[in-house]
């Protein structure tokens, strides 16, 4: 596709702006995390670090429970992801590929779940969990995360399912295959990128969840990163170096994750139909 000079300029200006808006803040944070405290609080800050120190990271690892938070976050996110897929996939298949009475109503009902602010369910849910002994458990976080991610995941799945040609399904039906086989053996491989997208969405949503984690988890041993990190902001003082190191460390795991599976997420989105 041939571009005019003006179009090329616009394109590259756009790319430059994107890099600036997204990349620059992270650059500052990461370089800040290795600066000496005196350099961090300077009145006129420096673009490239003039000093180098690992003291903030040392403090982060040694005197806080950051590794524990990390482990908890990973566990909760993994299970949230798995349960979300297990619940969303069949539901989406039913909504899109099968006919049954009340289909449209139920579909709309599920989307309407987003019409409620999370806080509204916080207190009653806490009471419910308390009654069944689930307070201060990572399982309670998984339950909440799945509930929050499910509607959007079903919607996303529905779109991917739509991109599969009917003929494949019909051929299988003619061959006499039951619906479950159709779903598992035939559809799943075709919509694998879609599943990957939903998986990553569920994982990231769980990773960043703060409100419920801050109230449902009581003990430090089960805390997740967002809450543990917010706690480090601390009463009566701010240690910017420690916070920047924490910010860097909290970003790193998802960056690594994305480096490994990011392209599936993107290809899943860009190849799937969004209706």
């Amino acid at each position, binding site marked *: 596709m041939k571009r005019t000079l003006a179009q090329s300029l616009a*394109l590259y200006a*756009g790319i430059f702006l*994107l890099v600036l808006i*997204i*990349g620059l803040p*992270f650059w*500052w*944070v990461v370089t*800040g995390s290795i600066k000496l405290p005196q350099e*961090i609080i*300077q*009145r006129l*800050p420096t673009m490239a670090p003039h000093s180098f120190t690992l003291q903030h990271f040392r403090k982060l690892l040694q005197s806080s429970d950051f590794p524990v938070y990390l482990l908890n976050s990973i566990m909760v996110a993994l299970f949230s992801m798995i349960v979300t897929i*297990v619940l969303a996939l*069949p*539901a989406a298949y039913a909504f899109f*590929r*099968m*006919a*049954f009475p009340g*289909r449209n109503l139920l579909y709309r009902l*599920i989307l*309407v*779940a*987003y*019409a*409620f*602010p*999370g*806080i*509204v*369910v916080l*207190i*009653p849910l806490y009471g*419910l969990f308390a009654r069944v002994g689930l307070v201060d458990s990572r399982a309670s976080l998984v*339950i909440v995360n*799945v*509930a929050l991610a*499910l509607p959007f995941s*079903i919607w996303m799945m529905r779109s991917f399912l739509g991109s599969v040609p009917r003929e494949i399904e019909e051929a299988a039906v003619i061959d006499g295959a039951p*619906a479950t086989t159709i779903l598992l053996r035939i559809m799943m491989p075709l919509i694998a990128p879609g599943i990957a997208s939903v998986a990553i969405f569920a994982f*990231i949503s769980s990773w960043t969840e*703060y409100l419920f984690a801050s109230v449902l988890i009581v003990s430090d041993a089960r805390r997740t*990163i*967002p809450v543990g*990190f*917010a706690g480090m902001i601390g009463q009566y003082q701010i240690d*910017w170096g420690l916070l*920047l190191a924490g*910010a860097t460390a909290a970003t790193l795991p998802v*960056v690594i994750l*994305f480096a490994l599976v*990011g392209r599936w*997420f*993107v290809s899943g*989105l*860009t*190849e799937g139909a*969004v*209706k």
Partner: protein
Amino acid sequence: MKKNTALAFVFVAPALLFLLAVLGWPLVQAVIFSFEDIGIIGSQGHFVGFANYAAVLGGMHFWSALGRSVVWVVGNAVVQTVLALGTALVLNQKFPGLRVARVWVILTWIVPTVVVVIIWRWLLSTSGGMINPLLMEAGIISRPIGFFATRRSAMVALILINSWRWFPFTALMMLAGLTRIPGDLYEAARIDGANARRRFTRITWPLLRPTLVVLGVIGTLLSFNVFDVIWLMTAGGPSQATETLPVLIYETAFKGYRLSEAATISVLTSVVLMSFAVLATRAMTASEAGR
């Protein structure tokens, strides 16, 4: 379309029951709370009928917060749509490094909200933050600004920060819609002599519109309910300038120790959102049916 009702229900039931249990039942509880007079959580309440509703609807707090929520949602929608659309259009072109760009543009979304808050709290501060010195150096301002010192700048700053966080995700959703538009359409149009603007208005926009509508609805709902960014950044301040409905609910419940009142506000908020969602999904299915 296969008609296999029983199996369909088996497929749908787990998700549905799950949502009913985890979201539906607590909602019912919240409605019950709104008809009682519970203060601190755990204390006993008595039935007071519609007293809470009268008080909330008759007072100032609910309506001001609702207004702020509307400003918040509209502001986010505008900024995010512009940024996301621009980003999606860029990512729909071919250039060296495209694959990398498509994967990493979403960096701001995969990071926990707390980190976003820390980053911007630090960058926007007048002691050690980068933004003020940069603006001064570029000659845009002569004195450092306190971004959260005045009502308007606080809301604007928050909208920008939240948009910074969400626009790549929205952009990828839009990109998904854009990639579905067959390249042949553009080729044919170019052969017919259409310039870039015509190609956009005649091909891109109409074919992208359904996607935008859906994103708009869901995006609005999610945006309306954003709590943690606002709470961790300004706690609704300065002087309640950024106190949207979710923030008001949290404050009323946990700092004002008026649980039933908070439940009442929640129910009212849900009614507002549900009406919007119902109307919007109706419009959605209508536009889908028309295709």
